[in-house]
């Protein structure tokens, strides 16, 4: 008795010496309460993000948007109108329209005295580069074969800056499908042309201006990537000669076309300007907007990368304050109809009012409708960043560290209204001119403002410092619970130290007591290895067989199960020396501890690569892993607590399985009708085709973790 007292005394005295250690022990021993509090706080903080959003501001002073009056005059608009008319007349007669419209645009460009060149490219199908993320752009070798008959031709016009040194450039991209081009595309060409013609005459231009008419008959993304790749990979020797070797017959046709254009400025050799300061992709679409002319901004590039916030800021500022456009960013529309969200918004609004009545300086309330809109925008911002698939051709620029956004202007009136067309061209042209004038003022590349942010409206954003808190709250319980489980299973906890058994040196288990986690690590490693194999499978399946998505999906699932079984037989069987440890009681706790640690590492990594994926993934998988508890023990206990835990476990286990998550979310957002098992396959295929890190996350962090959770649930303790 006295001995135990002395022992506890010594323990307490040791703890008194170091408050930090004491605090750590307290947190670890109360890990259940701490994890409940942290997870709830994490979810609540996520819902609070629209309230915490800040107004955007222009951080880089050099930009000075809108400080100069617009120089775009009716002269340019008239010319632009002429171009639009010419192109429209060309598209009405289909034969040879592609070649002619290309020639026409080049003609118009070179008439202004700009340097013009054609850029021929072969569209490539997206390929799976699992390690693409870690290497830079252009590292994929130019070795993939392409068919020679498929090619597109970009038209590039360059205005050299009279005051510049040719080391910097601004890029404007207008996707134009030379075969099926509509009026919208013609109008976007018109806007770009008006700006282009203005820029050939102005004296203030300090950076070269590149106008890329991207041939979008094979999608809008492919031509821009091809052009950027050729722009950034220096080819020694003539590029066209390289193409001649590969595709002979095409080149002959090409030469003929070249001869038909008697202009000195037009060439096939690739022309360069300096490094790109910023890029804009301009599109015009008629969306049947009833209220006013709107401007939609698309900014998400691959793996949730965003352009510098300043670029969005100047576009937003100029569009709203100078041109009177209504600026939109994507929203998840179905969220707007949810009752509970509106109720939550009203609660927050009344809370804000209450706070304001207490102290007028506290201004954090926003109105309920604002809150709902903000949440819908935030959700879509999170979703598109998490997807990791670029939302437009601007994504290609981000791979080369160029800030770029896509602007989609939709007029109020239909395109057929000829009177409004000039006004529309003027409005769009002035917007683009303003943006280019601003970017032209830049002394360095964009660096002042944020790169990591979520938008809640065009004028409001949540910066990385705020949204990281949400994520940190969600994952904070992970190391604590892992430590507590580990300490429990190793009897390291000072509370449970009393019944310490003498160490038996004779067997390996006793000898390597502090290393017995190795066995669990091996299991976790095997499951992660399985995850890696599973994420490689779709590539091979799609290569080998050509079935419907549903069949592919089923093949994938059955193959994965088979491999899991095989791996379990070969590697999962306990190592002969370790059998003794294996049969111990608390083995599942150690396994859970290792699982949680691996999840923590995986989520932290993912939060650096793509925050949105990590956030959504953490929302799903963190509660599942924290709750996981062997069902057998719960059934044995037969109390209300264990019963509820069992039900929670089962529900969470079902929800966090990636396919069910996908179908559930799809059902909730789009309705359960018409859900097809192949949808998941299509979604996954789009992810890996775009080299999204989310795909690797699902395959190598989420899925293995889920499997391990199920393993713990079914553990035979």
């Amino acid at each position: 008795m006295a001995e135990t007292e002395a022992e506890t005394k010594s323990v307490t005295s040791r703890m008194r010496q170091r408050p930090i250690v004491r605090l750590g022990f307290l947190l670890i021993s109360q890990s259940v309460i701490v994890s409940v509090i942290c997870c709830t706080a994490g979810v609540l903080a996520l819902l609070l993000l629209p309230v915490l959003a800040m107004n955007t501001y222009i951080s880089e002073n050099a930009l000075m948007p809108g400080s100069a009056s617009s120089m775009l005059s009716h002269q340019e608009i008239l010319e632009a109108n002429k171009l639009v008319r010419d192109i429209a007349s060309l598209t009405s007669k289909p034969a040879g329209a592609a070649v002619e419209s290309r020639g026409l645009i080049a003609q118009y460009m070179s008439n202004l005295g700009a340097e013009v060149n054609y850029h021929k490219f072969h569209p490539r199908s997206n390929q799976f580069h699992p390690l693409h993320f870690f290497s830079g752009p252009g590292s994929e070798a130019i070795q993939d074969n392409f068919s020679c008959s498929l090619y597109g031709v970009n038209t590039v016009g360059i205005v050299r800056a009279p005051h510049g040194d040719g080391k910097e450039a601004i890029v404007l991209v207008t996707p134009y499908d030379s075969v099926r081009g509509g009026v919208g595309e013609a109008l976007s060409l018109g806007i770009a042309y008006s700006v282009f013609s203005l820029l050939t005459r102005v004296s203030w231009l300090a950076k070269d201006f590149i106008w890329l008419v991207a041939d979008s008959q094979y999608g809008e993304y492919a031509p821009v990537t091809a052009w950027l790749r050729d722009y950034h990979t220096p080819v020694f020797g003539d590029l066209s000669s390289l193409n001649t070797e590969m595709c002979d017959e095409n080149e002959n046709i090409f030469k003929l076309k070249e001869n038909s254009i008697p202009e000195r400025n037009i060439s096939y050799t690739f022309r360069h300007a300096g490094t790109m300061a910023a890029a804009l992709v301009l599109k015009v679409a008629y969306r049947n907007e009833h209220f006013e002319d709107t401007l939609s901004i698309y900014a998400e590039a691959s793996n949730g990368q965003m352009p510098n916030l300043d670029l969005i800021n100047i576009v937003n500022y100029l569009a709203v304050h100078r041109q009177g456009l209504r600026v939109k960013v994507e929203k998840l529309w179905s969220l707007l109809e949810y009752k509970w969200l509106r109720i939550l918004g009203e609660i927050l609004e009344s809370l804000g009012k209450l706070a304001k009545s207490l102290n007028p300086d506290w201004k954090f309330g926003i109105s309920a409708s604002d809150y709902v809109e903000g949440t819908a925008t935030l959700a879509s911002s999170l979703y598109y960043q998490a997807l990791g698939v670029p939302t437009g051709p601007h994504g290609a620029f981000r791979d080369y560290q160029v800030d770029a956004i896509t602007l989609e202007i939709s007029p109020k009136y239909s395109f057929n209204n000829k009177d409004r067309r000039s006004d529309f061209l003027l409005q769009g042209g002035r917007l683009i001119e303003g943006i280019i004038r601003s970017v032209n003022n830049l002394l360095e590349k964009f660096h002042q403002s944020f790169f990591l942010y979520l938008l809640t409206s065009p004028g409001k954003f949540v910066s990385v410092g705020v949204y990281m808190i949400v994520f940190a709250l969600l994952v904070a319980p992970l190391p604590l619970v892992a430590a507590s489980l580990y300490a429990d299973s190793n009897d390291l906890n000072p509370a449970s130290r009393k019944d310490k058994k003498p160490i038996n040196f004779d067997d390996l288990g006793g000898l390597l007591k502090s290393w017995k986690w190795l066995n669990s690590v091996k299991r976790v490693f095997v499951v992660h290895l399985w995850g890696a194999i599973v994420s490689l499978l779709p590539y091979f399946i799609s290569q080998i067989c050509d079935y419907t998505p549903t069949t592919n999906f089923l093949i994938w699932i059955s193959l994965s199960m088979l491999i899991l079984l095989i791996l379990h037989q070969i590697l999962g069987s306990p190592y002969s020396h370790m059998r003794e440890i294996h049969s111990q009681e608390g083995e599942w706790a150690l396994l859970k501890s290792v699982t949680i640690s691996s999840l923590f590492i995986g989520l932290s990594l993912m939060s650096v690569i793509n925050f949105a994926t990590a956030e959504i993934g953490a929302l799903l998988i963190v509660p599942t892993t924290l709750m996981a508890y062997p069902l057998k023990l719960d059934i044995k206990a037969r109390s209300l607590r264990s019963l509820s835990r069992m039900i929670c476990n089962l529900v969470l286990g079902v929800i966090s399985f990636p396919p069910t998550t996908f179908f559930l979310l799809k059902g909730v957002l789009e309705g359960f009708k018409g859900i097809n098992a192949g949808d998941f396959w299509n979604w996954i295929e789009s992810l890996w085709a775009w080299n999204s890190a989310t795909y690797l996350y699902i395959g190598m962090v989420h899925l293995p973790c889920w499997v391990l959770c199920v393993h713990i649930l079914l553990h035979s303790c």
Partner: protein
Amino acid sequence: MAEMEAKKEEKHSKRSSFWVWVMASVVFRLILVYFHKNLNLSSRPEVSTPLTSIRRLAEGYWLKQSSMSPYAGSMYHGSPLLLSLIGPLTVQRIQGKPNYLLCSLLFVLADVVSAVLIRATGQKLQTAYSQSLKLLELDNLSRSSEILSSGDVAALVYLWNPFTIVACVGLSTSPIENLAIILSLYGACTRLPSLAAFGWVVATHLSLYPAILIIPLIFLLGYGLDAPPRKLFVKRTHGKGGDNPSSGSSCQQEELLIQIKLPLTFSWKPVMHFLFWASVWSVYVLALCSLSVKQKGGLWEMFKSTYGFILTVEDLSPNMGVLWYFFAEVFDFFRNFFLIVFHMNILFMILPLAIRLNHRPCFLAFVYIMISSMLKSYPSVGDSALCLGLFGLFIFELADMQFSFFLFSGYVGVSLLSPVMHNLWIWRGTGNANFYYATAMAFACFQIILVVQSTSAMLNHDRKLRKLYVTKP
């Protein structure tokens, strides 16, 4: 008898499984070598430092072939001997195969030889240790120390460590450097002064930092292999001898003591041999070097651009160490001062550690290697690989180490985070140098924790031995 048989059987199966794992690791490496272009490991800053990069070596070789000094242009900073040894392999092609293939095979071979040497060292250490435990009549412990063959564990840890694999496939020259260090330790453990001296001289010549290993090597040759503290043996021979009425048995034991050369006295003879051989080998290596660089600047330029380059931290390109960022930031007029401070850091720790751990020279060597791999100017994953491999040699003594799981998770996490941060900084442009440097610091922290914890576990093990010995009935 049957037990003996079973044990033998088990031993046999263990040995065969060891070789299976070795073969598997070789096959795995060859598969990775096949995907060399896709992995592009040789351009990672973690793998190839200015000292170990194969591309720089190829450049140096090219310069040498065009009869210029290989050190012209500040590209190559390695040894001229390495240039003549590996240089031809960088341009040699066998029938249309890519030119890195021969180099890769050489490095794979170096890794396997290192692993075999580690295994032999481990077996030596283990038998010596269990003998000395038996001598202390701690039979229980000595039996348990034989359960797990620490040599096998260490060799497999070295071979299957992702760091080793990456360094080998990424074509850095660190497998060769590691081989030289391991060779010197092996030579000292098997009491071959000439081999130990050769390894030490080559290792020092290649990467300078192994020079501090001369202290553990001298201890190894002078005192013998790792053993429990010498005080215990002294107590044994004197204290117990008086109690024992039958003096015959004590005499016998003393004979046994002499027989297995227990580390009671420092024997100067092998040390003298070692020093002699070390001077012979260094003269030999220097002569070869001077032959190699005779017309191209001579030995002085070689020293300036190899050792000088290491000591003055000229190349500030990012690596996984902690010095590059610091010297990129520090004011120029403080530079020399901090250079001295940083290099003294390593030297300061030599003496106290040598005094405290002189009865365990191999472990002392491990601690020295660990510290120098942490504080050296251009560290790479190859250095950490060597440390972790040697760590496996003391698996029995360090069985009670604390924070083992924490350290493991930390190592895994940081080594995954580091390339991501590098990507964020270099390719995406959304991060900056601080991001990457943070992971370098975290890595250094984990290394510090590992070295502190392992040392304290070793001292605790000594304490436990003393306690068991004193309380023994």
